[in-house]
């Protein structure tokens, strides 16, 4: 009984929240935005090195956001491997004997790899880019794993850590290189901006796929525990 009263109270609060928020949105929507950022953006597009505005914002104008965001992904990957205490992340229980899935895979895997490649390549001048391509690549890996294809490189060894770090490291080095050249952190020289962005996107695709896949497979398998502070083992 008490619980249902509590639920009703929460529902009331949420309803009030929705109404207030909706009023706030309508209030804000009444007047046009004071800064014409899209206009400013299209003026500067020529200097960005790519034709697709979203890619330009992500990898040039607001590249610091993207750098930190890849950091967030890497952190999630690290934290994921740190709690899974297994020598091999390959889970034998997952090996399916499903022939349909296996048959599907033989068609899907190459198709998805091609799709990932296309998305990456498209990113410079139309929708697509590292994130979508990385996600598709990771999805391919997930599928391979569900089908029981062994993926030894996902052992929490040096190779996995290298894969996690690669995209981030390259991005960071490019950011630093421009700072050493006398510009600001993350300022690409306009002449090679396009090449640098393509390079960053390529390594990011690999790293994003690697992180997502590592998180997917770092399922806990054994029961090893360690004592907390001040407790005897």
């Amino acid at each position, binding site marked *: 009984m008490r619980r249902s009263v509590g639920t009703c109270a929460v529902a009331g609060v949420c309803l009030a929240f929705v109404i207030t*928020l909706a009023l706030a949105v309508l209030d804000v929507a009444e007047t046009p935005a004071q*800064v014409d950022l899209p206009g400013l953006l299209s003026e500067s597009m020529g200097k960005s090195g790519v034709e697709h505005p979203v890619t330009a914002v992500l990898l*040039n104008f607001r590249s610091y956001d993207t750098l930190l965001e890849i950091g967030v992904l890497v*952190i999630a990957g690290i*934290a994921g491997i740190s709690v899974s205490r297994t020598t091999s992340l390959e889970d034998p229980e997952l090996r399916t004997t499903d022939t349909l899935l296996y048959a599907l895979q033989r068609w899907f895997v190459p198709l998805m790899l091609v799709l990932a490649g296309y998305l990456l390549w498209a990113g410079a001048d139309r929708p697509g880019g590292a994130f979508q391509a990385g996600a598709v690549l990771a999805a391919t890996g997930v599928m391979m794993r569900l089908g029981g294809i062994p993926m030894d490189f996902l052992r929490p060894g040096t190779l996995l850590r290298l894969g996690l770090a690669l995209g981030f*490291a390259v991005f960071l080095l490019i950011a630093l290189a421009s700072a050493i050249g006398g510009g600001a952190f993350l300022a690409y020289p306009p002449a090679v901006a396009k090449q640098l962005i393509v390079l960053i996107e390529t390594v990011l695709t690999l790293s994003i796929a690697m992180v997502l896949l590592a998180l997917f497979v770092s399922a806990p398998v054994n029961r090893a525990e360690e004592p907390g*502070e001040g407790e*005897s083992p």
Partner: protein
Amino acid sequence: MILGLMAGLLFTPLAWAVLTLLCGFERSRLISWLGILVQSLVSFALWAAVASEGGFYYQLGGWPAPLGIELRVDGLAVTFVMLTAVVGGACGWHAGIYLDPTKTSHRYFWPLFWFLWAGLNGVWLGGDLFNLYVALELISLSAVGLVALGGQADALRAAIRYLMAALLGSLAYLLGVALVYGQFGSLSLAGISALLPADSGQAGLVFALVLMVAGLALKTALFPLHGWLPPAHGIAKSPVSALLSALVVKASFYIAARLWLEFGEHLGSYELAQLVGALGGIGVLWGSWLAFRQSRLKQVVAYSSVAQIGYLFLLFPLSWGVSEAVALQAQQGMTLQVISHALAKAAMFLAAGNLIMSVGSNRVDALAGVSRFLPFSLFSFGLSGVSLMGLPPTGGFAAKWLLLQASLGSGQWWWLIVLLGGGLLSAAYVFRVYRASFIENSDTDQFFHPARSLEVIPMILALLSLGLGLVAEPVLSVMVLPFAKGGGG
């Protein structure tokens, strides 16, 4: 020169995160100690440069504000960058000795530690609402990873609870950002505060500010949203607890304070300011009382953080609708409280870790007799306790004195109850720990002695917190430095 320093400041922690990810524990430790040295030197050089030449805006990627991201490098920001270098460096140094190198999961401490540092610097310097969101997430996720390090069930539960609270807080903040972007079409803090209409605030924007402050208050563990903090800070390894209590909760508070100081004048109201202040005040009293009642040592220290965070929120009522002088006092009091609490709480958690290591138990009553064996750590614990109580000449005293003057100066005498009551209650919980450790009826004489350097680090931090009261003037003078160049809005 100063641009090079900025690049170094941004690059070092991220680069060290990558390096330590690739190496094992012991090599990472050496690399990290070197990195701590580098980062501290860079932070100090930047602080000195800003102290002599004044603040500036740093355009990342060379793009000016509404289009690109600008970092705001002013006196307050570099003061906190400096604080992070001191406290973070000490915790990293301590962790290298404290953590057991043979446990495989401990190697991941280092990359998470460096990402945390990068995120903290990102928050102190951030001048862009969305960039602050990403930096906050960087901090939250690495902090959660650090709490979960080791992967024991209780630690995982605390980590999951912490993660849930942090994520909800971030989304509330982001929702506020969405409203602000809808109104202004810009994310730059300086740009927005220049655009804010001089007359009274618009209802939609007021709600945006409320949302952002509420989300950040959840992440800062303001009463009554503090439930997640004690388990997470209590169960993490001591150097991690120290980092979390000293720096991580300050990051979200710092953003809330910046937003309030920039927008509060137009969008805030007396009621809102008083409400936030009252929650902070209740937090001080309630947190201190619960700290007094805890049976486990690290829980005492963790609840004490809930209390000390409450003081920070007195900034809201004490800087709204008051004279310039009083608002300045409140800001200075807040800054000193952040610094002194960071130093004292880091010292306290590290000392508590030593005591726990020594007696082999987390319980307060298990400390009986430890005073003879570990007087040094116990002394550090006590010294930092003195700063938390707010006795002269500590930094805690200077902070609370400024807050007290601001309360009296603005006629808001009711905050005196909080300031005095909080001090008395914190004296109670510190002395409770002391009394337990001086009981001599202990039947065990089996005390483990931690390495000498583990005892030195909390002592240094405690002494810094103690001495802060004496050097408050020069520290505060850097904080209020005006901008040398760049449009400050």
